[in-house]
């Protein structure tokens, strides 16, 4: 007789699960961060002001925050979609890198095309390359039972090594010592939001925020439709919730693993559009900067739902942008301490997600089932 773990939040009102608990977790994380600031001999209140001001205090700051959030939406969605199928896709990092390879190949070699033709091809390449990189671990899981966590982690290393090889030996222009490609042509770049707004007669401060944010939001809507409103999404969720029930219902778990991981990889791959076509305008080493891993925390905090992932992505975007500002403004708080603070938020929002449930339950539960 196996015992299924009870859902720790079963019976709690919806608003408390979606709003109150994440809020409390966040407060606890900030309290712990405050202690660290105190240890560093600084004023926590001042640190909060710098952090929030750095993330939201000016148009430029908001632009940076949303720029980071765009990448987090892609990688967070990638983790969430795989998780609906019961899979922990740790490979967002590698899938984004290989997606970036696809984007670079299109932008470097197909730039005879006009922007309006080039853009869909580049998006398709990002998704396709990312999906292909996720497909191999998916096949290994579905057909051979190799655990997806292990294989996707290993595929991250393989992706990094491939990119180093390509950028050092193949793709860097002749005579250059830089491990990077030549710059993309002007029309092979994504317009910045401040450029678009300027063209429409609305002046906003310049920032790296570009139109890939629109694509990220479209992906949110798409993922929501797929998971909750299509037959394929239903099959995916059945496999994630109960493989035995899936087999009973005539659903092949292996096929759904392939579908979910392919979609997951495609979403992770699209993250490279924001970074490469949006800002770097060339393929560089390690442009993913660990955003693939942060996507796991974003997905956890957003409870795997696009409506939760967007605010979670903005929160982490704010931590990145505000954290950078913090390290710059208050020298006693170093970059490493900012990373510790980001880690604390991940710890409280992700790993200790249900810490306050036992204490809160008596106040929240009015009815229970015999």
């Amino acid at each position, binding site marked *: 007789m196996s*015992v299924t773990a009870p859902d720790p939040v079963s019976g709690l009102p919806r608003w408390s699960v979606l709003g109150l608990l994440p809020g409390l977790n966040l407060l606890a994380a900030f309290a712990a961060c405050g202690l660290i600031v105190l240890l560093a001999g600084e004023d926590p209140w001042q640190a909060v002001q710098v952090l929030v001001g750095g993330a939201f205090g000016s148009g430029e700051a908001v632009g940076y925050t949303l720029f980071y959030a765009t990448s987090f939406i892609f990688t967070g969605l990638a983790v969430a979609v795989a998780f609906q199928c019961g899979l922990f896709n740790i490979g967002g990092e590698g899938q984004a890198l290989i997606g970036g390879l696809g984007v670079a190949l299109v932008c470097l070699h197909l730039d005879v095309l006009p922007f309006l033709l080039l853009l869909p091809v580049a998006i398709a390449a990002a998704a396709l390359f990312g999906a292909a990189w996720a497909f191999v671990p998916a096949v290994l899981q579905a057909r051979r039972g190799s655990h997806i966590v292990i294989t996707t982690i290993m595929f991250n290393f393989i992706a990094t090594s491939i990119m180093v090889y390509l950028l050092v030996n193949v793709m860097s222009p002749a005579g250059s010592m830089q491990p990077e490609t030549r710059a993309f042509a002007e029309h092979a770049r994504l317009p910045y939001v401040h450029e678009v707004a300027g063209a429409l007669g609305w002046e906003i401060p310049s920032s790296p925020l570009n139109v890939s944010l629109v694509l990220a939001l479209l992906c949110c809507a798409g993922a929501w439709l797929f998971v909750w409103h299509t037959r394929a999404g239903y*099959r995916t969720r059945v496999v994630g919730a109960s493989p035995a029930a899936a087999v009973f219902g005539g659903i092949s778990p292996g096929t759904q693993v392939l579908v979910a991981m392919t979609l997951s990889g495609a979403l992770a791959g699209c993250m490279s559009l924001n970074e490469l076509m949006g800002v770097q305008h060339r393929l560089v080493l390690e442009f993913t900067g660990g955003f693939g891993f942060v996507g796991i925390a974003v997905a956890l905090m957003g409870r795997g739902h696009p409506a939760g992932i967007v605010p979670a992505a903005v929160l982490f975007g704010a931590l990145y942008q505000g954290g950078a500002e913090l390290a710059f403004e208050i020298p006693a708080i170093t970059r490493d301490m900012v990373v510790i603070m980001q880690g604390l938020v991940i710890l409280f929002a992700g790993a200790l997600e249900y810490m306050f449930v036992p204490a809160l339950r008596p106040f929240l539960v009015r009815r229970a089932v015999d």
Partner: protein
Amino acid sequence: MDKWFGQVHANRRVDLSVSSGTVHGIVGENGAGKTTLMNILYGFYRADRGQILIGGKPVGFRHSGDAIAAGIGMIHQHFMLVETFTVVENVMLGAEGSPLLGPAGRWARRKLAELEGEFGLQVPMDVPVGELPVGQQQRVEILKALYRGADILILDEPTSVLSPREVEGLFRILRTLAGRGKTVILITHKLAEIMAATDRVAVMRRGAVVARRRTADTTVSEIAELMVGRQIRPASRGVPVEPGRSLLDVDRVTVRDSAGVARVHDVSFSVRAGEIMGIAGVAGNGQSELLEALAGLRPVATGRILVDGEPAVSGSRDRRRRGVAHVPEDRRRSGLVMPFRACESAILGYHHDPRYGRGLRLDWPAVAGDTRARMEAFDVRPANPQRRTAELSGGNQQKLMLAREVERATKVLLVGQPTRGVDLGGVDFIHDRIRSLRDAGKAILLVSANLDEILDLSDRVMVMAGGRIMGEVPAGRAAEPDLGLLMGGVRGSDVPDRAP
């Protein structure tokens, strides 16, 4: 004692006293408040009013640790065991008493041997629990409680997972425990068990104890009436219709498990339109594997399965296309998806049905409407398609599954353990539905660990033992002793005047 959950008064002025050295039964339908009462006794919930006294002293339990310290042990319906650990490891888990496992293990082994001897609870100590039969796993649970010094043992629906022979064994153990001064509280809704195993019985209905009896002074029908508050009509076998053509043919089928061991050996039989074929047997003798193979969930090693004369291939989708519906034995594991909403569970296997939306899309309002109609038709309470499947009681989950499958059984219904964990009213309802499907000319194959159910429902009874068919008995003449012989593996030819 009183307990409210919001507006629901789950326990109303419950008064219960249990004397040591007895087996005390608590009966009631699902939702009568038995489980709430036990959860209060075990410290999971706190009573809103009233108190608990042990040996005359009032106790206040804040959590189950307090209850364990006060000598209360609970054996849950679903076991709390680590399947990959051995018996000794499971018993000492959480009560090692030493940071080093070596001395703790030796001590546990000695204590366990004492307990096994004292109470006649023989269990192999070094076998992983997952490899033990269910009846033995339950003994491990009992040993766990005794090991922690329990004087009062609470068993919640202990027989729902046991075969008839294992039930007898359990009752012997309960007798021994009571004989050695332990106090046993047995929660069940099976009346035969109350009569067989208890000294005294309390009947609960809608949260209150409505009657207390000495078991020797009462009868099954009296308790049944007290439980439901009305007269129960005797089980009607219905008028058997003349069976028609054969809809399900099983032709020399052998089924192997994943380790390659044959679990079903060379089995042949057929089920005709308008009859219920019951498969009786001690649990674990190949009935489950046979049912799964018939449902397309397990590959057939050799032999053929024919549905209405046509050979079927592997896969449950093939069966559904051929008008074979399947109510699986284990609703929690495979028949329903526990974390899903009821309407999401209610389309499992039929999610391709065009009535649930065109193209790729699933039309949730249409699904919910269809589910609500099915829930109402099968008396699932509450008939709310948005409720989580896991929040429905066992009986309502079972009815939800039947609501999904019965209408789709255009030719054959395969049904396993249709009333496991279902209360009395629900059992009647489910049996009626199966009979009316039979009367509508479908072929029905019934597998159940409950022999009464098989005898009540079936037109023909087939007995399996060791993966083989031991014999077939026409239900009208089937007598339990003969079935007992067949279930024990004694060939049909040894009971000549009963075999067909």
